[in-house]
Structures are given as C-alpha cells and as structure tokens.
C-alpha cells in the first residue's frame, strides 16, 4: 500500500506490471542519450536514433493528403464517434489498397482500423493474451512489441534474425522454441531495424513453418512500399492460404505522417481458423472497448489512398535510396563498424561494433553515450532492440545532415581507436 507524508495511509499505488514492461524501451534510451549531450556544443544535434523523418523538408507529406483531411473536417460529417473497427468507407478503401497486387480481394469486414500501428499492436497483444500463452518475437526487434507483450503478460520467446544470411529468420530456432502454448510468430517485413526485405521463398518457408507449428503469423508490413533495393516486396498476405495471417500496417511511413495516427489490422483467414478458434470474436470485444482513429482522418482515407500522386512517393523513395547508399558507403570507411547487409528498405540499418579496435569503450551503450557527448550525434545502442554491441542507425534524414552525422561518427571512431604499435 502507498504511504505518504504526514503519516496518512492511502490505499492506492502503482501497477507493478506496467513498471516491469516499460523498462528500457527506445524512448528510455533516447532520453538517456539526450541527457548526455553537451549543452555548450554549438553544433546542431544530429538525430540518427529515432524513426520519424516527417519534420524534414524532403519528407514533408503530400499537400493533397493534407487537403483531403481539411475537406473531411470542413464537411462536418466526421465529428462523430466511429463505429467499432472504423467507418465502412475507410475500411473499404483500406481493403482495396491492401488487395492491390494480390490474387484475391481482402474483405472490408476483415479490416479493422486503429489509431496507428501502435494501437494495432496494443489490441493484438491484449487479444492473444490467454493465460500461459507465449509469442515468438525476432531479435533484433521493434521493442514496442516486447513492451506490450510483457504488459499483457504474454511470455516472450526470441528467435534470431541471422546477419550472415541477410537477416533471414532462423527457422530451426523457431521450431525449437515453439510449443503447444505458442500463439503467434511476429515477422516484420520490410525489417525494422535491419533494413532488409525477405524473399518470396523465405516468406513461404516462414508460412509453412508457422502452419506446421499451429501458430498464426503477425505480419508487420508498416514499411511496405518503403523499398529501394533489388529485392521486391512480397506481402505475407499471399500466403494466407497456408497459415492465418494478421496483417498490420499504417499510412505513417509511406505518407510520412506518424502523427496522424491511422493504421490497420487485417485478419486474413480463408479457412476460418482464426474465426473458429474464437480469436476474431475476442478481437471484436477488445476493439469495442478501445479507442479509434480520428473520425475525420478516416473520412479522408479514400482520397488519401487513391489520389496521392506517384511523384510524391518516388521523390521520398529517391531521398531514402540516396541516404541508404550514402550511409552504407560511409560506414565502410569506419574500421570499428561493419554493416553486414546493405539496407534496401525501411529507415534503418544495423551495424556491428568491433570493440577490440576501440580504446576506452566497453560496450554499445558507452559508445552511444560518449558519441552524444562528444559529437552531438544520436545513434541508438543495439541493446535497445535486443542486440548488444551493435548500433541502429537511422538514415532517414536530409542527405546533407546524414553526411555530416556520419562524418562526425568517423571522427569519433578515429579518436577512440587503439593506436597502432610503434615499429
């Protein structure tokens, strides 16, 4: 029970489960690094630690999307409470959007609109949290899944993404980890934080493995269409016939509007497996009590999805391609850092620290703290996403800013490298 000054005894206090599940997520590390910044450094801080390019001019959203929202708002038709799962016109528009390139049409009733993909994760974890259940998450991961799973008291089991194999899923590990209480496997494709895209063959193997194990696939495709390399993106939706798929996505990345809080989850379940197990019913119950995306954004969705011009998307992709190339090339010049796989998607790349060539730095956290202090450069320590002694670098910023940042990284690395032995 809580105590307070004056000796008065109060009967309420904190929820310990919340405390445990929130330790050390991305925000925690970003705050920690910000605390290390040297205020007397006159140079601007270069933020290569988080994943939101929307403030930068090259990533400013398409004006037609803005006008679509303004129109919806001014119509005064969208100020009311939303229906559970979203307005029918918005669900239909998202279903059509997701069905592009598929051999089948996703049904609007299978599409549930959420306040961003984070909300979808929130709802999904709540829905799957049957007592004793466990979930398979990748390492490295997107830590919101970890926090949210812990909060719902789902046991987390981790499988590795293999850097030597282009960050593919270690399917042997998946089979070894799963048991009769495993509910689902999370697959993030294109990958945050590794920046790779899974091949069609590999996705099929994942689907077949999941099917064999009797687990559903959570396909987080929030970076769908944010690809700029050789590997074409293939949606897990194509394998819904093999295994039930819970497809997650949003407009946040493609339109650079994470602040608009609009995402979705689609239950792809042609054999009614999720329905028969009661999962769909449970999902409806959770959604019924949960918040919704802003109604006027929903009202604008048909126009946003259908009318945004290709030029906007290609312009953003071009900037990302340029940045990813630049990042990869610059990293090659830095001896204490290796990038095992050239990024071809998302906004991030994972690079390994060679601590043995560094003088006075013992791990990734110390590296990043000192980097913040000495160079006003923020890069995320790999431990925040599950890989100690790696780094996650965000390249989705203005190209000039990225070059500047990587140059500071290079200087820092040189300064801290072990001096060569005198002959």
């Amino acid at each position: 029970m809580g105590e307070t000054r004056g000796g008065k005894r109060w009967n309420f206090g904190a929820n310990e489960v919340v405390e445990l599940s929130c330790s050390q997520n991305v925000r925690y590390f970003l705050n920690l690094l910000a605390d290390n910044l040297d205020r007397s450094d006159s140079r601007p801080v270069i933020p290569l630690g988080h994943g939101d390019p929307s403030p930068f001019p090259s990533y400013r959203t398409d004006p037609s999307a803005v006008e679509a929202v303004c129109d919806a708002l001014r119509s005064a038709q969208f100020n009311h409470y939303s229906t559970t799962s979203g307005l029918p016109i918005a669900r239909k528009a998202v279903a059509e959007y997701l069905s592009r390139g598929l051999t089948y049409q996703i049904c609007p009733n299978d599409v549930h609109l959420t306040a961003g993909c984070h909300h979808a994760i929130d709802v999904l974890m709540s829905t799957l949290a049957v007592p004793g259940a466990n979930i398979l998450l990748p390492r490295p991961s997107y830590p919101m899944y970890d926090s949210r799973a812990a909060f719902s008291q789902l046991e987390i089991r981790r499988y590795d993404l293999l850097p030597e194999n282009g960050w593919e899923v270690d399917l042997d590990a998946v089979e070894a980890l799963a048991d009769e209480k495993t509910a689902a496997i999370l697959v993030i494709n294109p990958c945050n934080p590794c920046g790779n895209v899974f091949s069609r063959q590999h996705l099929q193997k994942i689907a077949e493995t999941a099917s064999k194990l009797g687990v559903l696939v959570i396909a987080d495709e929030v970076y769908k269409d944010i690809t700029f390399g050789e590997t074409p993106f293939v949606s897990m939706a194509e394998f819904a016939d093999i295994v039930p798929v819970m497809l997650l996505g949003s407009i946040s990345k493609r339109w650079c509007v994470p602040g608009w809080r609009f995402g979705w989850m689609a239950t792809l379940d042609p054999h009614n497996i999720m329905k028969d197990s009661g999962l769909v019913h449970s999902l409806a119950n959770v959604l019924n009590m949960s918040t919704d995306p802003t109604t006027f954004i929903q009202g604008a969705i048909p126009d946003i999805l259908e009318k945004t011009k290709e030029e906007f998307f290609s312009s953003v992709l071009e900037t990302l391609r340029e940045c990813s190339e630049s990042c990869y090339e610059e990293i090659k010049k830095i001896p204490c850092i290796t990038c095992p796989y050239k990024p071809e998607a998302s906004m991030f790349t994972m690079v390994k620290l060679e601590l043995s060539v560094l003088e006075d730095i013992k791990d990734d956290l110390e590296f990043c703290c000192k980097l913040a202090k000495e160079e006003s450069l923020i890069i995320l320590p790999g431990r925040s996403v599950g890989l100690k002694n790696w780094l996650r670098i965000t390249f989705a910023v203005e190209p000039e800013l990225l070059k500047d940042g990587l140059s500071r990284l290079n200087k820092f690395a040189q300064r801290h490298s072990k001096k060569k032995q005198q002959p």
Partner: protein
Amino acid sequence: MSEEEAHANLAVPAFRTEKVAKTQTQNGHGTVWRFGGADKAAKAATVTLRGVIYMLFDNCSKDVKKTILPLGHGDPSVYPCFRTCIEAEDAVVNVLRSGKSNSYCPGAGILPARRAVADYLNRDLPNKLTPDDIFLTAGCNQGIELVFESLARPNANILLPRPGFPHYDARAVYSGLEIRKFDLLPDREWEIDLEGVEAVADENTVAIVVINPNNPCGNVYSHDHLHKVAETARKLGIMVITDEVYDQTIFGDNPFVPMAKFASIVPVLTLGGISKGWVVPGWKIGWIALNDPEGVFESTKVVQSIKQSLDITPDPSTIIQAALPEILEKVDKNFFAKKNKILKHNVDLVCDRLKDIPCVVCPKKPESCTYLLTKLELSLLDDIKDDIDFCVKLAREENLVFLPGEALGLKNWMRITIGVEAHMLEDALERLKGFCTRHTKKTVTETESPSSV
C-alpha cells in the same frame, strides 16, 4: 441532410455473439491451432450498452412505416444544430496546413497542449496545475482505460456509481478491478449515498468515481456535497476520480464546481476532454489532470504508472494536440450558450409532453448532459413487465428506441436522449403517447374508484 442520413452516422454497435473463445481448434489437416482469444475481453464486453442498443434496433422494422428514432444512445455531433464552432475547425485546418502536425509526440502529449489544458482548468482552481500535471489521452474513454490499468493490482476494488456510465464497468472488469457500487439517490436529486460508500469500502478500495455533471442523471453537484465526498474519500484513504467531461454542457441554475477545489483534502484525478463541450467525440482527445498539492500521487507512484502506461498505449493525433491551445483559448462563449439553450429547450419540451403521459414520469429535470431519466409507472400498464419489455415493445410497435434503465443499473427507469433535433423529440413523444395509451390498463366499471387509475 435528411434525418436518415444523419442517423446513418450514428455509431450502431457491432453485433455481439454469445460464442465463447476456445483455445485450440483443429483444421482438416490435423493441425492443432494454438491460439485463442482472451476471456477477459468477453467478460468486459457483456457490460457495455452496445448489446442492448443493438437488440432494440433489431426489434425495429420496415413494416412500421415510421423512421427509426434512435434516442437510446447519444451522439449529438451528427445533427447540424450541434455542429462545432468554426474557431475549432479553423484551428485544426491551420495546424494541418502548417505541416507541424505530422510527427510522433511524446507519450504524455506535447507541451503546448498540456500547458493549454492546465490554463483552461486553472481558471476555476485555487491550486494551480502545471503542464506536468496534465496527460493527454486518445479520448476520455481511453483516459479511463489508462487510469484503471495504472491502478490495477491484486484484490483491488473500485467504487462506481449506480446509475452509471457502463464503460467504467467494462474497463474495471477488463483490468481485473473488483467493482463495488454506491447509489445515486433519486429522491435527493441524485446525490451520492455517502453512507453506502462507507459501507462498501474496505482496505482494498483504491478509488471512488464521481461523474459531475452527471451522466446519465443530468444533475450538477453542489459545493457542499462535493466537499462531503472529498472528506469521505479522505477518511477511507481513497482517491477521487472525477469525470467532468460535461463541464460545458450545463443549462440549469446550479454552477459547476470542479472536484479539484477539494484537492487539499483528497487527491483528485480529473478526467476531461473537448468531446462533449465542443461536440467533437470523433476528434479523440481527452486529458487526465492530477490535482494533488500534497504530492500523494507521486509518493504512491501512481504518476509513474500513468507515465509508463502512456508510453505503451495509443496516443491522440498530433493534429488535435497541436490545435488544442487555439481550440481552448479561442472558443466563443456564445457557442456553448447556443448549444445549451437547445438542450434546455429539448428538456422543457419533453417534460411538457410527459405531463400527458402518466406512466412515464420525470421526477427531476436534468440541468446538464444530454439525457433525461424517467421512471416507469408499470402499475398503470397492462401487459408490460419491466423496462426492457417496455423498450422492446416500443421499438417493435413504434420504431422508437429509448434505453431501458436496467442497462445503467436502474431497473424500471428509462433514459431518453435529448441531444437531438427538437422535431425528433416532438415525433418521439407523440409515438410514446400513442404507445402508452394503447397499453394503459382500462378502468373496469363505474364503481371502481377513479384514483385506481
């Protein structure tokens, strides 16, 4: 727009099945599928209004050649007469076009928005709030979710009013908080039964929820009564969670007194938002304000719990957060006055018509919120056994939907939504009158005492 079109925007709830979640099913190939759905969501869902409302809509029919009048649940925002003020719309459009509303926000909300809420609330408060005391939520309902999750611990119980707002019940069940009810007393203008509160509270009680102005009763609590509530809560060692979302929807004589005025007696957690005041529930923004000059929330770590929950729960859109300062500062008082005048007029209209309908009685005119509670005099009716039966038959015969009080914990009462266009209420009361006349017990012979009717 036509009436039908307006109604089309009203959220009609998703159908609730009775199916229980299984944890394993087999498909034809012998695979055992290992996932199922969480039970607690199902349990929570049974206490929402949606099931009842849907059932009543189901009883309406095209054969009754009258438009459906949905006066069982409420969302005034679909009716043109309640359209929000132009200043609020302008604020949002300005923010959208500025390009400054596209980024992620911190979990607690952006500072200008938190500051604006603190300023808005501080106008009426002796103990001033700082922006740090304010947390933004994705709607007031999400605020309830967050607070209950933050307070949940083994064996904890929470005191909820009866009649009440069923979302509280649903979220309490979902968070594993035991619910204990206290009554609002109809013959004391819906004041809280404080003796009842003391009787049900124990060492595991964490909070009492007070809704003021009150949904569904429509009363506004007096300064004295709230003072007594604060002292009772202090005596019991519990916080007061006060839901003040109707603070700008008042049309009677009693002034609104924020519970935070008594924060030096007991820690007060205030839930609020713009959804009802500005008639924009679809904009999905609300707030939690911690009124706590003694620092109790800090020392009991409730603040920490709330902040951590905010990091992993959905956020309000940056658009509305960025627009909030302008919305709160620039509102034209005339907008509230106009809205509240319509509601007052609707209340007067309904009460006037009810004079001719003896079996439906409104003992106390509401002076806030958007509902009117009536008591059913079932003894005057022939073949109607309770409020649910009344409402089902009313829906079936007249395509008129009112909410049976049972859904709010008040058996044999009935709730009428008055946040609608006036002509809908005229029509509704006509139909109600017809229905009641048809179902009234006939007097038997001249020798029967007239007072038996």
